[in-house]
């Protein structure tokens, strides 16, 4: 023997799929149908480097299904559009609102009967921080 050539660890590839032992008996008939597992991250996060988790507080957006303490999945790569729920900069604060567009201008709407919408003045610039794509609400 002249040399031991190790396999580089970066070539190691864990194989989660095949589940049964084959040396005795028949392979599992299900093996042909294995598809890997479902990844919730992959499902809700389309742009990982642009996605942030944000905690909601207060009850101004209960109508949109956002309750105090809920976890919001926010994607900064999405463009603001009519009807989307977004994190918006308002008076130096970040706040969650529904964007509604009429006559080319956005207004910001809470979704709670007791909070009136915020009509933006001509000179007010809406800075959208990110678009909310999902709400994670804890039932326990």
């Amino acid at each position, binding site marked *: 023997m002249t040399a031991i050539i190790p396999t580089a660890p970066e070539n190691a590839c864990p194989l989660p799929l095949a589940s049964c032992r084959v040396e005795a008996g028949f392979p599992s008939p299900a093996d042909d149908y294995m598809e890997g597992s479902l990844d919730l991250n992959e499902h809700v996060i389309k742009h990982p480097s642009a996605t942030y988790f*944000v905690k909601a507080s207060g009850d101004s957006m209960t109508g949109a299904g956002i309750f105090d303490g809920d976890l919001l999945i926010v994607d900064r790569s999405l463009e603001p559009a009519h009807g989307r729920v977004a*994190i918006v900069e308002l008076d130096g604060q970040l706040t969650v609102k529904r964007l509604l567009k009429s006559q080319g201008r956005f207004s910001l709407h809470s979704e709670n009967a007791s909070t009136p919408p915020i009509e933006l003045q001509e000179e007010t610039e809406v800075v959208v921080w990110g678009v909310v794509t999902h709400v994670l609400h804890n039932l326990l």
Partner: protein
Amino acid sequence: MKVFALVDCNNFYASCERVFDPRLKNRPIVVLSNNDGCIVARSNEVKALGIPMGVPFFEQKALIQKHDIAVFSSNYQLYGDMSQRVMDSLRLFAPDIEVYSIDEAFLRLDHLQPRNLTEYCKTMRAKVMQWTGIPVSIGIGPSKVLAKVANRVAKKETDDGVFDIRSRQAQDAILKTLDVQKLWGVAWRWAERLRRIGITTASELRDASPPIIRKQLSVVGERLVRELRGHSCIDLEDIQPRKNIMSSKSFGNLLTQKAPMAEALANYAARACEKLRQQNSRAQAVYVFVQTNGFRETDAQYSNGLTCTLTVPTSDTRLIIEAARFCLNRIYKPGYRYKKTGVMLLDLIPAALEQKHLFADSDQHSNDHLMATVDRINRDHGPDTVFFGAEGITRQWKMRCGSRSPRYTTQWNELLRVS
């Protein structure tokens, strides 16, 4: 022809803080070093006030109060995560990327049509801004040295943050007024030597005879001349897994007793081992050092270090802590006021490479399993959910980081809150 871009985040640490707090938008910001000692990052407003980089925080306290400057302890978890996001965003635009530092990356853009390059970089810049909130400047050039020069121009003299220095006219105009010492890789000593042979500007260096420069500054200097002429000699470098891992911090207060130092050391060792396991390596030796505060001239000074070889390569925190304490016991001397200790894991090898050792215990597998479990618990439930007794509980040696912002992107209980 090769085309390089250098992407550099503007005032990176200050920009990270601003992403999560819009009230900071036009407010001057400083970020302090570990232990809140010195100013290590400044927003543009602070630079304009003339507060220099690296000065002790306490010396600037009056100015900071007068101008209502926001002060932050460094939040490396946040900066590291935001850096990762910036780099990942850049990868979507250019597959060939060298992450040069936490806030800088070199890109190869050869595959793009040169005609569209400035526009492409503007789009890239806008996307990084949208996805991460971090403003960047981009310099484009035919070599890394020139891309770095172009980046300087992009940052200081353009509105759109992109500058292309590939044309000869642009190179002439910029290099003519650029001090050699501002060039990438030119230190004060080199600048001094060049001055003695009559070279003070970048264009003078570019037009100098390579053999003469080689005599003054070795082949490295000669390479610099070629790079300035637009001949690329330095390509992108692949990032190798680290060969050594260092973990070291100053104490919150000077320490005289061995016990709290041993705790701190065990804590740093545990952090280093986490990194070691993350990159699937094992260490073959451990180096430990201690030092007093060299700035306190009235204190007696002492520093020392010791390396200890491990019987078998390991990534087991318990064994590393044991080795580190063994070293500390030999180098600690009573009667000094210590400022800092640290541990370095040396001669790392891939975990897969390891040979069976005659005298090694055969529990390697279950030890690996235990460490993986510890790492998983701490990842899922927050750092220090489980830790080693040797790290101590009260941790009086801990660094000061009194003004750290929330770790918005890496801790579940510190997320940004919106109402």
